[in-house]
């Protein structure tokens, strides 16, 4: 098997919600050690793709292979090798961090004591040791985000789906998480990184996949995209490829309406 295809291989993926097509033939392959910046405007189909790979959305057409096996044919076992940070901070917040992370570890088939021990040490590194036995509902946004990150990594997955993983984190924590991602990739893990903050995507991604209207409109390293589009920043490339150029006019109109009083 081609090592590039060994982690993730999507071919001709279509998905519609009642005649409304959100994915129109996605083809994507990813290998180990890549950090893929998965970007696109709202409603482009990013989260649908990720949800299909996680088995949350059914009824798609096309093939999705993870680690070489078709997920439609295999059970749920492939999920053992996946870590997921959802965009909406869904967690059982009446539990304490200890209880929640232990439970998550066990769901991934870890032994309870091992999960607890690992979770505690990871939380300690994030400065959560004092809050470890408090209910998550009392946490700040950044603290919850750290819990989500820990729970996605606890079982040492090979493939990570991170949706706005830095949201709510302070500048120091952001630096830590970025370093963590770089090191995980260096160890051969594949990271799918979705975000709307282009500066970060530009810096951390080894490869950028831009999706618009349910199709991939660009795929390559940041350097590739820059040479192709003749633009300086990822933000500008994004604007160009999604056919958006009138931000100045819109801003003008916006401010003038605000002034009307």
């Amino acid at each position: 098997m081609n090592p590039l295809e060994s982690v993730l291989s999507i071919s001709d993926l279509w998905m519609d919600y009642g005649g409304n097509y959100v994915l129109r033939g996605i083809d994507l392959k990813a290998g180990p050690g890549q950090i893929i910046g998965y970007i696109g405007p709202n409603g482009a189909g990013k989260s649908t793709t990720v949800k299909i790979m996680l088995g949350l959305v059914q009824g798609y057409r096309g093939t999705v292979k993870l680690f070489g096996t078709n997920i439609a044919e295999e059970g749920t076992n492939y999920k053992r090798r996946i870590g997921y940070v959802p965009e909406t901070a869904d967690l059982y917040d009446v539990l304490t961090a200890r209880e929640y992370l232990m439970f998550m570890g066990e769901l991934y088939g870890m032994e309870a004591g091992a999960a607890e021990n690992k979770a505690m040490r990871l939380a300690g590194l994030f400065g959560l040791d004092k809050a470890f036995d408090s209910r998550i509902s009392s946490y700040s946004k950044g603290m919850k985000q750290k819990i989500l990150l820990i729970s996605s990594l606890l079982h040492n997955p090979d493939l990570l789906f991170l949706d706005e993983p830095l949201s709510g984190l302070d500048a120091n924590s952001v630096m830590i998480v970025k370093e963590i991602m770089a090191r995980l990739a260096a160890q051969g893990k594949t990271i799918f990184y979705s975000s709307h903050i282009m500066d970060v995507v530009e810096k951390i991604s080894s490869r950028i996949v831009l999706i618009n209207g349910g199709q991939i409109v660009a795929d390559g390293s940041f350097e590739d995209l820059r040479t192709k589009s003749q633009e300086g920043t990822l933000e500008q490339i994004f604007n160009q490829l999604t056919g958006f150029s009138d931000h100045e006019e819109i801003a003008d109109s916006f401010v003038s309406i605000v002034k009307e009083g």
Partner: protein
Amino acid sequence: MKEFLTLKLLDRAKPLFVKAGVDYDMLRRILQVKLTMDQRRASTVFGKSSGSNKPEYIRKGAVLKQTYTKPSSSLSIKSLWMYALIGAIGITPFLLLGDNYMLQAGIVFSIILFLLTTTMVSDFSSVLLDLKDRHILHTKPVDARTLAAAKTVHILSYIVTLAASLTIVPLIVSLFRHGLPFFLLFLFELIAVNIFVVVATALVYLLVLKFFDGEKLKDVINYVQIGLSVALTIGYQIMFRVVDIININVSFTVAWWHFLLPPFWFAAPFEWLLHGNSSFSVLILSALSIMVPLLCAVVYLRFGNSFERYLQKMADSGKFEERKNRGLHLSLARLICRTRDEAVFYGFAARMMSREREFKLKVYPVLGLAVIFPYIFILNSLSDSSWADLSRSSLYLFIYFTAMLMPSAVGLLRYSGNYKGSYIYGTLPLKDMSAIHKGALKAAITKLFLPLFLLNGIIFILIFGPRILPDLIAVMLVITLYTAIIYRMNGGGLPFSESFGNLRQTGMGKTLPAIFILAVFAGMHYAASLFPFGVYVYAAVLLLLNFFYWHNGFFLSRTIPES
């Protein structure tokens, strides 16, 4: 995390789960977490939670202090006692009455079915339709069968606990009154009833999920819940009609419509096995009591997976809210609100009430009951008086039952799923906070009460004649005053400013005094109606009281609350 008794009992059924292809250890672990969470939440599961076990958190920078008083299970035990009491007082007498098993057991099962189904619909729908689980549990390497089993067992464990406390006294009584065979049969049928209630409810939702999606689906579920609670109340009344009409000692003949009433299915085996009545219809009914729950269970097991898939539809964004004609509401707001601020909050509250899911889930079933309750009482008294007597009587006062919805509506007004949005009250340049309260309360009256009152008012005028028109006006005045009074009794927290998680003691504790006050108003109304022009005097007094109360009754929380 605690070892729950439920789990220890469940361990005995482990081989069953293993045989069904369920990962039992995982199932057990998920249930343990779920039960722990239920216990910590100021749960709706058993409805009540007192202030004493509310956790308090103080966060200072990164340091978190948690002053959490130990969660006590005594609360749920307390409400289990309530169910046991209802069982002892409400069910047991029917077992003692005679030897007409078909009727006795029919009544007993209709009470049990009624209580279990209403609890299922009102308290467990949220568990059944939980979306949060999808992102947390369904992304993990746990197979769908185990997750579905966990969900079902979770709900079943509560329903069984509830059913057990409800039937413990009747079961013991039946053992002594009717002997061991009756007792065993009763127990067996109860198990069938439990399965029937949980699985049938799930199947109804499954059907709804299949044909609708997005926001529409949530609305339809609302309507199903309202429909169910109304249908159950009416069905319950029918059961008692049956008893009224047929003497309890007369032998029972099966009519075609008995096949449509589940309580008779569950009653039939008693007639068949213990009375030896093996007529064809009794056999059919008996068969239904086993076959229907079994069939439902099989269908549920077969399609349980699609349930989860359809559930995803709820998460997918719905269509745009229809832009309705705002003309009528706007002019109504201008008409009944004295200031612009008040009108703004009127509009806001009116919209929140019609959109807020949980608010609707809790209040709408009561709306259904409020509409039909007056008629149920009129029908009850119609059985011993003629129609002509009725139209001349004072029974139109039963229209006060329509106002039964106000205590729960008003009590729930301060809760919202979007309670965090309530910071706007603090950041707005508002002169007078009472505008918020008045606007919201006026919206509650016109949006929730008024339509039902108009409907019932028209029907009542048809029954009792136009002579009751002044009375209806007096009733309306009572309600505006009454609503303001119970709102103050509730302490007057700002509307939509607290999480439903904080919901405490909506049960009898607050509703009973509120209903008592309504009864006092109705009593005074009756007294006034005994004098010539009494009703007019009553209405005039009410008008004055309304004026004073609405002007001066809202001094509470005029200042901005500390969040």
